[in-house]
């Protein structure tokens, strides 16, 4: 248990350091090549997690288990399409990550993003979505180790915060590239424009986590223990 903790913390730390270095670049270049560096920053922070997954000796059961969770997260956008702005993809990723830990949480999140875009059409938003949902999995996996994370109310706060954070990161890709200069005012304008969507996302996260967290985490935990997966 201790070695797992150490390893995932180290890849998390590595990702953070790489991000910090490139953010420093962005600040020192003062808006020049902002998009390029933010994309490099994005990819670099995801690489340690992918590398950890790639080099892991994984069994068929585990790979399929992760694939099912990612597919459920991707598919869950479909039946909810008639309900405006309500979709449980984030909820599925958060619950899976809470049970399985940060690394598998990252893989579930980013795979769900890329696969759902394979059916809905890829776009410049794909890497950002992979990053957002992946990091949602990472953070959920990290807090999943603490006792207080089992408290439903704290989880709802977590889901609410991520609902907004998700929208804010997703705004970056076109604001950073197409609006000049980048000041606090620019970002506030973009965030005001997307406020309704972010609020809907945050509230639906709270709704799903409040009502379904227990039953879903019980199901996933049961399969994890029964088949001895990802330990």
């Amino acid at each position, binding site marked *: 248990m201790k070695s797992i903790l150490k390893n995932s913390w180290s890849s998390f730390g590595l990702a953070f350091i790489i991000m910090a270095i490139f953010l420093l670049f962005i600040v020192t270049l003062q808006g020049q090549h902002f998009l390029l560096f933010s994309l490099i920053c994005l990819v670099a922070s995801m690489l340690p997690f992918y590398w950890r997954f*790639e080099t892991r000796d994984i069994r068929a059961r585990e790979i399929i288990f992760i694939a099912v969770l990612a597919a*459920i997260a991707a598919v869950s956008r479909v039946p909810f399409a008639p309900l405006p702005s309500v979709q449980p993809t984030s909820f599925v990723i958060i619950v899976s990550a809470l049970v399985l830990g940060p690394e598998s949480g990252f893989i579930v999140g980013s795979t*769900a993003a890329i696969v759902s875009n394979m059916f809905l059409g890829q776009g410049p938003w794909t890497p950002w979505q992979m990053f957002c949902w992946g990091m949602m999995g990472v953070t959920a996996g990290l807090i999943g180790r603490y006792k207080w994370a089992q408290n439903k109310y704290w989880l709802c706060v977590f889901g609410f915060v991520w609902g907004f954070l998700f929208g804010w990161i997703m705004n970056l890709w076109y604001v950073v590239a197409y609006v000049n200069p980048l000041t606090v005012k620019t970002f506030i304008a973009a965030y005001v424009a997307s406020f309704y969507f972010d609020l809907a996302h945050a509230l639906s996260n709270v709704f*799903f986590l409040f009502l379904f967290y227990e039953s879903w985490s019980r199901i996933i935990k049961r399969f994890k223990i029964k088949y001895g997966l990802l330990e």
Partner: protein
Amino acid sequence: MDVYGRSRQRSSRASGLKSQLVFDQLNPIVIFAYYVIVIAFSMVFIHPIFLLAELLVVIAVNFSAKQQKKTFATLQGALFMMVFIVVLNPIINNRGAHIIWMIGGTVITAEAVVYGLLMAISLAVLMLTFVSYNHSMTNHKFMYLFVRISPQLTLLTMITMRFVPLFIRRFTNIKNVQKTRGVQMETGKLRERAHAGMRLMEVLLTNSLVEALQTADSMTARGFGAQKRTSYQRYRFTQRDGWLLAGLVGISSFCFWQASHGVGRLPIYPVLGSVRLTATGWLCLWFVLIIDSLPLLLEGWEYLWWSLRK
């Protein structure tokens, strides 16, 4: 979205049927390089002549692939962001010499308006390039690019991709069965519908996990992970691919090198410059257009060859 509706039929995108266009039959590496370069061009050359020409070429490429409907739908979808960019730039940015309007404390300058418009066109080019990308770069080709770099992830993505239509079909079954018990998400309040939908997803989760883990066991029984996997490669790297890739990389690096010296970039701040291009500017424009219209040129070449040989 229409892919979800007819899950029984396989769409040509999903099944990897061969396209009729020459460009779609190139090696995925060349196709990917083409899109990376086209997107980079649309961001590097911020100049009205460059951007308008690129926009026309991208629309022509989309039309040649019979993507008229998608082209207009995408433009409509991007309209919100384009308006946002056009409106926000002048409000945020007060730099520039030509003042056209003053409201309260905000100064609207001609420079910022021009910049906003150029950026909106650049965004339109980007969005339309992705229409073409989604048509030419099928999921199989995308997987091919990454299978060498990370086989494990590609396998995971492939399995997940296969699960999506399967789960949608399964979900329809579950929905019909649960309807007889009164669990349905067609009518009722938003809260009730979301609640019912989630209960259906829960059934899908349990059902799919049981079945999928059985599949996994059968994979193990057939020797998954016993030794290094071999793989079948669908795409070959021909001589034509080699030449095209070399041309793409060579010409585009010349253009990027020129761009880093300020060629093809309209001087906007502090004072709006003239639109006129220098001799190297025109050269760069021609190179950019030749690369952007690569699918059209290949198609035209093939057509000429065919009609001359007859």
